[in-house]
């Protein structure tokens, strides 16, 4: 309450959408981004990305499973989520997310099931007892595997991946749409919002895959598929340029329009969001990784260790860039008073129900899930000891 400034209405002391609503588009973005990377291989035949294609797909599912957790924690009555299905409201933008989310979940699960069918049959053949039975249930009682089944599976995976790309874009574009369509909020209300969200989603998806791919290989002391990493780094470089440019173009557009909202948004950018937006999101976490990825993409660096480390640091920075972007959009938009003349203040508590520790745990859980999945079906081949 100490840093409320200027003209604030009494009901604006506390913001409504907390850090949980920052995490929700952040995790959803990684879902869409990771899926699109896997589709690069499946649909666009980028053979170099074969190494991470299935890893990207499973990552997408891991994040997808937990994308709604921040929302459910925020709303406080998770069991009521099923009412979206029981009593669907087709004119509600929020419930629309529920349908797209469910549809996308079917596509991803189906694609993973088809992609891993050969491995599951292999495990089924090698196991006994209850484990064998579980594999049989997962295989839906059909362990038939031959050239024909593999060919059919591959075709279907391509079809699903092709279909999945627009659905992934809609899924995350939809999150951007939810913000962009709130016309009462001067910081959110722009048709560019959903496009920015899609591109930042691809950036976060690529960044998290690069981050995990290198991290796992360094931990296991295995050699990195350099071609794959270079290609991912180049894509990351390209998409981050588009994403950051769009983010800046949006502000430029509002600034150039110079309508009444710019008076307050200028103060927002220059005041409450100066650190998180100007210095961190744009300054440190956009410009620096841009320079790093420009160097790794355009120059012929012979020292691959330095190159890979540079790419890895850039990916971590871009993950933070996207996180700050979500924060600046979600929280920044709520800091502005509806009077357009003042600001409120927000920072999450450490141990709050919607605080920093809970946020960290929610972010961590998909990674734990990936770790467990890797134990059963190693992403990058069996561990070398």
């Amino acid at each position, binding site marked *: 309450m100490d840093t*409320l400034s200027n*003209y604030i209405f*009494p009901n604006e002391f506390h913001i409504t959408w907390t850090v949980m609503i920052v995490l929700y588009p952040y995790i959803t973005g990684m879902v869409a981004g990771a899926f699109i990377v896997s589709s690069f291989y499946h649909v666009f035949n980028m053979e170099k990305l074969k190494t991470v294609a299935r890893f990207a797909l499973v990552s997408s599912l891991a994040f997808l499973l937990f994308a709604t957790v921040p929302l459910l924690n925020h709303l406080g009555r998770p069991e009521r989520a099923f009412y979206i299905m*029981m*009593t669907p409201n087709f004119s509600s933008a929020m419930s629309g997310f529920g349908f797209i989310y469910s549809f996308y979940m079917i596509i991803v699960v189906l694609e993973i099931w088809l992609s891993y069918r050969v491995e599951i049959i292999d495990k089924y053949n090698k196991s006994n007892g209850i484990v064998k039975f579980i594999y049989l249930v997962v295989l*839906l009682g*059909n362990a038939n595997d031959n050239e024909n*089944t593999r060919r059919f599976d591959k075709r279907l995976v391509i079809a699903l991946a092709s279909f999945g790309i627009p659905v992934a874009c809609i899924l995350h574009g939809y999150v951007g749409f939810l913000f962009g369509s709130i016309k009462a909020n001067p910081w959110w209300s722009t048709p560019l919002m959903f496009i920015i969200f899609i591109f930042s989603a691809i950036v976060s998806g690529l960044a998290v895959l690069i981050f995990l791919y290198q991290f796992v290989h360094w931990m296991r002391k295995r050699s990195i598929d350099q071609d794959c990493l270079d290609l991912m780094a180049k894509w990351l470089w390209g998409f981050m340029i588009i994403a950051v440019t769009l983010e800046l173009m949006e502000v430029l557009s509002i600034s150039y329009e110079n309508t009444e909202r710019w008076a307050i948004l200028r103060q927002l950018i220059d005041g409450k969001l100066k650190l998180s937006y100007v210095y961190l999101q744009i300054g440190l976490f956009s410009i620096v990784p841009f320079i790093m990825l420009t160097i790794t993409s355009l120059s012929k660096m012979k020292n691959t260790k330095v190159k890979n480390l540079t790419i890895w640091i850039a990916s971590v920075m871009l993950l933070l860039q996207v996180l700050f972007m979500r924060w600046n959009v979600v929280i920044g938009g709520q800091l502005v008073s509806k009077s357009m003349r003042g600001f409120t203040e927000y920072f999450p508590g450490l141990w709050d129900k919607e605080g920093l520790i809970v946020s960290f745990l929610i972010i961590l859980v998909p990674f734990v899930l990936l770790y467990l999945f890797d134990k059963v079906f190693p992403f990058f081949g069996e561990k070398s000891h």
Partner: protein
Amino acid sequence: MRDRKHIVTIFSLIVFVIIIGVIARLILKPDSFGEHGQYRWNAVSELQKQEIVNQNISTCAKCHDDIYQLHEKDAHFSVPCVDCHGAGNLHVLFHEGGDSAKQITKEQAALPKEYKLEGCLFCHKKLKARPSDFPQINQEDHYKFLNVPDLKTKCIECHSPHQPVFMLTAVREARIHPIVYRCTECHDKKPEQSFKEVAGHPAIFECNDCHPKIVKSFNERPHHKYIECRTCHLYHKENETTGRIYKNGNARFCLLCHEKKPFKDENYPPKIEWPSHVGNSNIITKSDEKICLNCHADRIHDMDVKIRANPHSSDWVSTHKNFAKVQLTVCQGCHTSNDCSSCHSKTKPVSHNQNWRKQHPSFGAKNQSTCEMCHKKDACMNCHKLSMPHPKGFEDNHKEVATQKGKAVCMNCHKEEFCKQCH
């Protein structure tokens, strides 16, 4: 076909799950959902049947009448009890007794009584969005003004939540007063210039326009350096042209700044020990609300002495002699030796000259307690054969009094012409 069987199976499974979902929806969809919109219509009647948990202020008043009386009179009169104390339904049920009370523990029935700083600031924190006449503080400035170094000091250390500013006049009975503006209602900070120095500035009525003598005398006294008229004369805007103003001379209001407290700075503003400041004996009635003004009115501004009441207890005439013998210095805190001699000298007071017979009725009507310092209460009765001054409503029943007591009683003061003025 055999090699595509697993694909058929999984799609069949998906279709099956969707069918199950549709059936589940039909079964689980709440009754009455969608009858009148995207909600459960039965929920409306269910909500209507819910017991009201927030207790009405009149319910609280049944047991806490003393607090209710204070609350109704003072600035928080429009704040319901539940705002600070919670719903209170269990509290009421528990104390009403009966079967339902048996299921409620004492702990459940207890109402929160802790007034947190943030709780008060939720309404009283300075915000530009609040109406400017609404009492609101910048906590730092407020504490700085009072020289309270610890910002965690709770509001209730000075302000009683039930009677936050100790008003003398009940809020709803306070005098209607034309609108009083403050510069800060339009300006962020109080401008250094007077509005009169700004060309084209709208005319603003100031206290000085109607009360020049009082404002002049206020400006000559020490308080004017630190406070303004509205600091004591709290003003509550009711509409765009009028509001209510309070002549707050309550001792406890003065003590908000001037009472010694451990969390306050010792030097500024000047402070006193309370109630020892007025003596530990019963020489002064501490329930007298304007007790400070009796001695310190001259530190504020010129005041009509009428507002000053006799601070001493009713038996003071008979008991003060013994007190003065022992603690004459305490008396001298307010009185000069002339005050003693005005009664104790053998000569009459200077005022009791040849005109006094004519003048004494109007003086007595206003200063009855002063008369009673020398004269007994029935002194009036001795001459007038009536309780004087005439009580309220005397005009209506004076005919009966004149018939009973005889017209001569009236003629003690009035002449025959006096009756003829009306009759």
